[in-house]
């Protein structure tokens, strides 16, 4: 047990613990905060894996963007302290068992699977490399998905406006 392991276990406990709390707590606002901690733990894990740029994007997009968006909509739709109704215990047990069985199944497969090491040269995940590949137009470049994802964002933008815009009859 050295420092590296300890850090990993701490981060993993943070991710899993707050993730579990986020899905089980009965207060909506608390769930959002637990989600926030889980996502921060995830960013820490990326740092530890030396994917600094992904870690930074994780903090900006998930922690700074998505969670704040969720908290906003909680305030728009609910009183913060209100307790939520839960499903019947039978359904809850069923859900837990189903999730656990799926987990066990996949885990058994992964333990049995022997991953073949590749002889790729290690490529540093620097921002320069990411940018070059993201906009590369040769084989293996990601220019096409980059453009496609921009169309997707445009569609989502239009859609959100169409959906969220109040129609005049609603206000009157």
């Amino acid at each position, binding site marked *: 047990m050295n420092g590296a392991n300890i850090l990993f276990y701490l981060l993993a406990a943070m991710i899993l613990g707050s993730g579990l709390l986020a899905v089980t707590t009965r207060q909506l606002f608390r769930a959002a905060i637990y989600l926030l901690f889980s996502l921060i733990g995830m960013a820490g894990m990326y740092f530890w894996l030396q994917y600094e740029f992904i870690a930074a994007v994780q903090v900006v997009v998930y922690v700074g963007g998505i969670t704040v968006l969720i908290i906003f909509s909680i305030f728009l739709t609910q009183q913060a302290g209100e307790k939520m109704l839960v499903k019947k215990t039978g359904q809850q047990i069923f859900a837990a068992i189903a999730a656990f069985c799926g987990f066990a199944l996949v885990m058994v*497969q992964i333990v049995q699977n022997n991953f073949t090491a590749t002889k790729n040269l290690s490529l540093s995940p620097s921002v320069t490399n990411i940018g070059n590949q993201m906009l590369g137009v040769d084989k293996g470049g990601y220019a*096409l*998905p980059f453009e*496609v994802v921009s169309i997707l964002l445009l569609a989502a933008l239009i*859609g959100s406006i169409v959906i969220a815009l109040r129609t005049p009859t609603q206000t009157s």
Partner: protein
Amino acid sequence: MNAIVLSGIWGVVMMFAGLFLKSSKQIQWTALLGIIALLVVSILDYQAHSVQAQTYFGMMTIDVYTSWFSILITACCAMYLLIFHKDIAAVGKNEAEYFALIFFVMCGVYLLASYSNLLILFLGIEILSIPQYILAGSDKENIKSNEASLKYFLMGAFSTGLLLMGMTLIYGATGSFDITSEKFVGQFEQLSSMSSLSFVGILLLLISFGFKVSAAPLHLWTPDVYDGSPTAFTPFMATIVKVSVFVAFIRLFHFSFGNVSDAWQIAIASMIVLTLIIGNVTAVYQQSLKRMMAYSSIAQAGFMLFSIFAVNSTLAYKGILLYSVVYSLASIGVFAVIIKMKDYTYDGFNGLAKKQPVLAFTATVCLLSLVGIPLTGGFFAKYFVLSAVVEQGKYIWIVVFAVLMAAISAYYYFRVIRSMYFKTGEAAMHTEPTTWDKTLLILNAMIILLLGVLPSLVFG
């Protein structure tokens, strides 16, 4: 490739059309112009790629099959827009945005037809889904439409999560996202070389696929969503989108996972049996025609699943092409009649034949085609997918079962015909069809009848 670019650009054009064009008529004409241009461009694409396949960025491979499918699906979409453009504009006051979203969906359709990388499959499915959540909820005053939108969104997002997990596990087993790469092909060469990790991945992909095409037992969202969405958008979701998801997954399952079909065929077989039973039996009990069509689309998905099931069969791809065209046109034809009515229940259709003989006739042709009566396109569509199963030689009993289920489906389709022709009633109309509408509906019915005689027209 040009079709993808044009559909993206035309979505933006429609957005600006909503800003600058004041009258709704002009916006509709812009959309129709766009779909016609898209049709022309996809035909040009087909001519360009008819000699040899071309790969773009190692992400997409456009060959003669995919570009031919693009033409067919664009033609179906053109038919849909021609028939429904007034109804789409009547849904709400953001009509330009609805057309823009439809063009973005078309972009996703082309991507799904020609991807060769799992990333493009993922993005294509997302571009297909996200506009649909909006279109389902576009009738904001109607609570059922809101419900449809929320339900569709939650189910769709969940299945996206499963899809991504499946892709990641397959990546973990193969080490590549490119389905044409050596590593990927080598992994799925034979059953013994496939690792168990990719088996779980394929299973997750199948579950997510079942969600998207509403195959039982993952169909639970379908009736509510199709029933709650505005009637102008339901045929779009039930036909063009669903069919292109089928074509996308056939590409993956036949060309990549074809050699390991023993691993997943049993899952598809059980899906088919459940889908056919649930879709057909539940449809019998429906009172609303729109809801009946939702269940019928589940049942028809069961038949389309046969084309995925029949791996290593030359007829499977022909079958799905014919099935998608015929099913799309027939559903569009039926919905075009439904949307003209005031009352969507069976009783609302009583006496339609006397009042509107053209509508009743075209609806009858479409319904007969959905049953699969000879001389309509539906017969050959069902014939090809079922004979594909016979050709590959395993699980023949499913074919017998499917024929039995088609007989059950005749009951609820014929019930509509009986209401229209043999019962007397008011058949109150919501909007009176114009001569233009009638011409289009007759054209639609004629195409279905023509495909019933010459099915080889869609094989290219």
